[in-house]
């Protein structure tokens, strides 16, 4: 610092350059009270990943200044973390509600970047007798979320001596996701099941727990390819109608399963993260039934 000032002083004839801005000591902490807006802030706040670094920049000569000495400025540039706690393992999930059934389906591919890690990994989890969840996104978070919900359901059963209903599970999932609002579960979920009257219900979520009861939904990497097809083919009443009508599809169970298969084949064509196999779980009055269908493996 002294040397820099010295340079300015030694070139005495010229107008003094303003002292360099040496902002802070080498260890930089975020000011207290600053809520981390993103996980990147969390990373940088952690003691294990260094935040700040100095850069001494030689500024180009300012046109107004007659000084020929370079002005040295120190600026803080925040070093971004190279390690991310998240990864996207891809995959698509779909759920369709019918008058007396519910279909939940997901592909079985797990990827990272441009690699396929495994072709045979289930994204579907049975949370209760009448609630089945399919989740895509970051697999470790998905598994942790499934474990968490299964544990909570177990406690519920001990306390209430009955299974959780699908709407109850839906609320629990939303709360669980929002609990980690500032370090989210990177999981994109659809919850499907039968409500207390035996009618199909589907709930769709974002990563932080915002949810809605719908007649059908798609999440995951292929969702943008799948959703428009479902919008047209399911013949469900429009969600924009007033008075609001329940959006369950009038299609039969067999037709819905067939549509699910078609939709996955379509998504597999264009989405690199969808493929290998689709696992289809059907809930109806007879119980839960699971089937698989092969998809393209490329």
């Amino acid at each position, binding site marked *: 610092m002294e040397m820099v000032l010295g340079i300015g002083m030694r070139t005495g004839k010229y107008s003094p350059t303003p002292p360099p801005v040496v902002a802070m000591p080498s260890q930089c902490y975020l000011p207290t009270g600053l809520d981390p807006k993103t996980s990147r802030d*969390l*990373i940088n706040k*952690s003691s*294990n*990943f*260094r935040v700040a670094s100095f850069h001494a920049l030689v500024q180009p000569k300012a046109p107004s200044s007659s000084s020929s000495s370079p002005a040295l400025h120190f600026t803080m540039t925040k070093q971004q973390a*190279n*390690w*991310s*706690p*998240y*990864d996207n*393992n891809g995959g698509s999930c779909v759920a369709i509600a019918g008058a007396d059934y519910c279909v939940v389906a997901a592909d079985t591919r*797990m990827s*990272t970047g441009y*690699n396929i*890690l*495994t072709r*045979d*990994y289930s994204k579907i989890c049975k949370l209760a007798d009448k609630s089945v969840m399919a989740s895509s996104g*970051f*697999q*470790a978070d998905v*598994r*942790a979320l499934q474990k968490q919900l299964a544990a909570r359901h177990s406690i519920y059963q001990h306390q209430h001596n009955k299974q959780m209903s699908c709407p109850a599970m839906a609320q629990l999932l939303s709360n669980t996701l929002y609990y980690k609002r500032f*370090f989210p579960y990177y999981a994109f979920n659809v919850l499907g099941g039968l409500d207390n009257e035996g009618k199909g219900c589907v709930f769709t979520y974002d990563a932080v727990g915002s949810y809605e009861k719908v007649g059908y939904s798609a999440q995951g990497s292929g969702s943008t390819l799948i959703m428009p097809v479902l919008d047209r083919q399911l013949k469900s009443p429009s969600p924009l109608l007033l008075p609001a009508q329940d959006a369950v599809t009038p299609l039969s169970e067999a037709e819905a399963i067939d549509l699910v298969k078609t939709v996955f084949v379509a998504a597999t064509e264009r989405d690199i993260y969808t493929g290998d196999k689709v696992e289809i779980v059907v809930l109806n009055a007879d119980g839960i039934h699971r089937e698989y269908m092969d998809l393209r493996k490329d």
Partner: protein
Amino acid sequence: MMETGSYGSTLRYKSVERIKPVGKHSLLGASGELSDFQELLRYLDELILYDNMWDDGNSMGPKEVHNYLTRVMYNRRNKFNPLWNTLVLGGVKNGQKYLGTVTMIGVHFEDNHVATGFGNHLARPILREEWHENLSFEDGVKILEKCMRVLLYRDRSAVNKLQVWLSIHTLHFVLLFQAIDNLRGDRLYGSKLDVTDYVFIILPLLRLDPTLSQIAKITEEGVTISQPYSLKTFWGFSAFQNPTVGAEGSW
């Protein structure tokens, strides 16, 4: 037993074990930061110790150990202080074979063949093509050697020395390969020691054949480790004799 651990681009340590038996039924291999692997082994020591102290005839199998490792890795990731390893866990218990992997952020899965690092790019395709149920031990070794040879040719930091770890129980076995000293790519925050390699495990179903039951007898505790050996390589391609003949001035 003698594996090398690199430090950046230096071959720093000459005798580092990168695969360890865990309990009675499993083998754990790791790539990445060696010190973190050693800490994991201490956690596992404690786990197995407490398991043994129950003294109830039960023992932690590969599935249980894999689950434990997944939890440890995931929870460290949640605290933004990961154990910088990719782990491979294989084993056989009660005739059930198991093979799984966990990465440093907690991504985990189970499959018939797994690989770390470069192995995902170069070896998994070969394994996908050639693996099938009812592989014999010799065939299994052949496939893995094929993978290792490709990696030796195509990874600039590979070294021609490998070792086979074999865990046998009754009819099933798990085979681990460990190659020596392959450098990892980008590193963050300067590791003290880089222990990187491709740890391959394949899970063939072994049919009773006399040579193998011989091995099974010897390895009552379940784990056998071969002596380190080298693969045969061929470099005598005519194109290598005068490589710049087609493009003067290149190298």
